[in-house]
């Protein structure tokens, strides 16, 4: 049985751990609200862009479609853009993303395709490197920025598009978690290059002829990189919200576990203190009787 002093030390240590997890939980809760607001604010742009894309893509079909929409004609070389967080303390979030990415990569490898990984965020690097040591391509560091925003998305997207135009790969997928709630973040694999043909929206202005300046193709050509950027930006916002949500839940659990542990240790501490007192009393009484 541990001595009283040891028990006391452990209780103090667990208490200070609890304070840390509690603080982290509250910070995450506050940041989550902000991240959610940011994700919400980004929605109108993405929605409009998608609807415009849909109407344009249905008009510019066939052979003269830009490469970014039509693809290279092959699907041999795949690239996975995996978005992870930079910081830990967020439960199984990164492990889940890594698992989803690895699963997709294995499936593609099993189909005989070439796979390359492009990593965003610090946390997924080590496990993915261990799983696929040969296939790690570029990495993008977001750890220097406090809130990854559109600029970072722009950089990532232009790098990816640049690699596509250089013929480094044929198909790119984006792996990121979709924030559902603080309890659930689903890792999702989404194709970004070539841009998946959007489902043709029922055109509400069927009669009206839309004029394009310059032409449909030129606009579409300009639009597609923007669309990719928006997708990446969306992923960055989702990961930010997911990180805070997962962190909040994980830290809530940790705080509760620490509370349980403290309770158990306190009971043990009191018991042994009582036992020590009883022993002492017995000794004194025994001593008094002997006299």
């Amino acid at each position, binding site marked *: 049985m541990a001595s009283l002093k040891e028990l006391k030390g452990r209780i103090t240590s667990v208490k200070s751990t609890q304070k840390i997890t509690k603080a982290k939980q509250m910070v995450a809760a506050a940041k989550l609200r902000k991240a959610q607001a940011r994700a919400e604010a980004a929605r109108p*742009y993405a929605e409009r862009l998608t609807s415009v894309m849909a109407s344009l893509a249905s008009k510019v079909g066939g052979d003269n479609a830009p490469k970014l929409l039509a693809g290279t004609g092959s699907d041999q070389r795949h690239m996975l853009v995996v978005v992870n967080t930079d910081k830990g303390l967020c439960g199984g979030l990164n492990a889940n993303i890594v698992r989803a990415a690895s699963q997709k990569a294995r499936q593609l490898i099993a189909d005989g395709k070439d796979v390359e990984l492009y990593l965003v965020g610090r946390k997924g690097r080590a496990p993915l490197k261990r799983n696929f040591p040969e296939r790690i391509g570029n990495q993008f560091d977001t750890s220097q920025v406090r809130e990854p925003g559109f600029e970072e998305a722009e950089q990532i997207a232009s790098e990816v598009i640049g690699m596509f135009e250089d013929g480094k790969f044929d198909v790119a997928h984006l792996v990121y978690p979709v924030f559902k709630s603080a309890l659930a973040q689903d890792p999702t694999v989404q194709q970004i290059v070539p841009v998946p043909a959007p489902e043709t929206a029922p055109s509400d202005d069927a009669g009206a002829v839309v*004029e394009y300046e310059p032409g449909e193709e030129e606009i579409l050509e300009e639009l597609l990189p923007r669309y990719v950027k928006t997708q990446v930006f969306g992923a960055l916002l989702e990961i930010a919200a997911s990180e805070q949500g997962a962190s909040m839940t994980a830290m809530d659990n940790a705080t509760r576990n620490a509370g349980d542990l403290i309770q158990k240790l306190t009971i043990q501490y009191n018991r042994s203190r009582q036992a020590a007192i009883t022993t002492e009393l017995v000794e004194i009484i025994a001593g008094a009787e002997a006299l």
Partner: protein
Amino acid sequence: MALHFELVTPAKLVRSEEVHMVVVPGSEGEFGVLEGHSPFMSTIRDGALQVFKTAGAAPETIMIQGGFAEVGDAGLTVLAEHVEG
């Protein structure tokens, strides 16, 4: 006589209001949009977007960068990557 005008960036919805006229710096020249403009779509070059709240009022200038403008039944929507002012 009001044109519904929306200015959207990836980060947020900057404007959504009823205005008289908007002058957009299209990539092939500036164009003004009034209510009832025929459906139209254009890419934009970096430049100043002028918003006229009412006829004859002094325009409000918004610097925009990269994007495109769409005129439809619902009014004018400008999607820009960066907005200043």
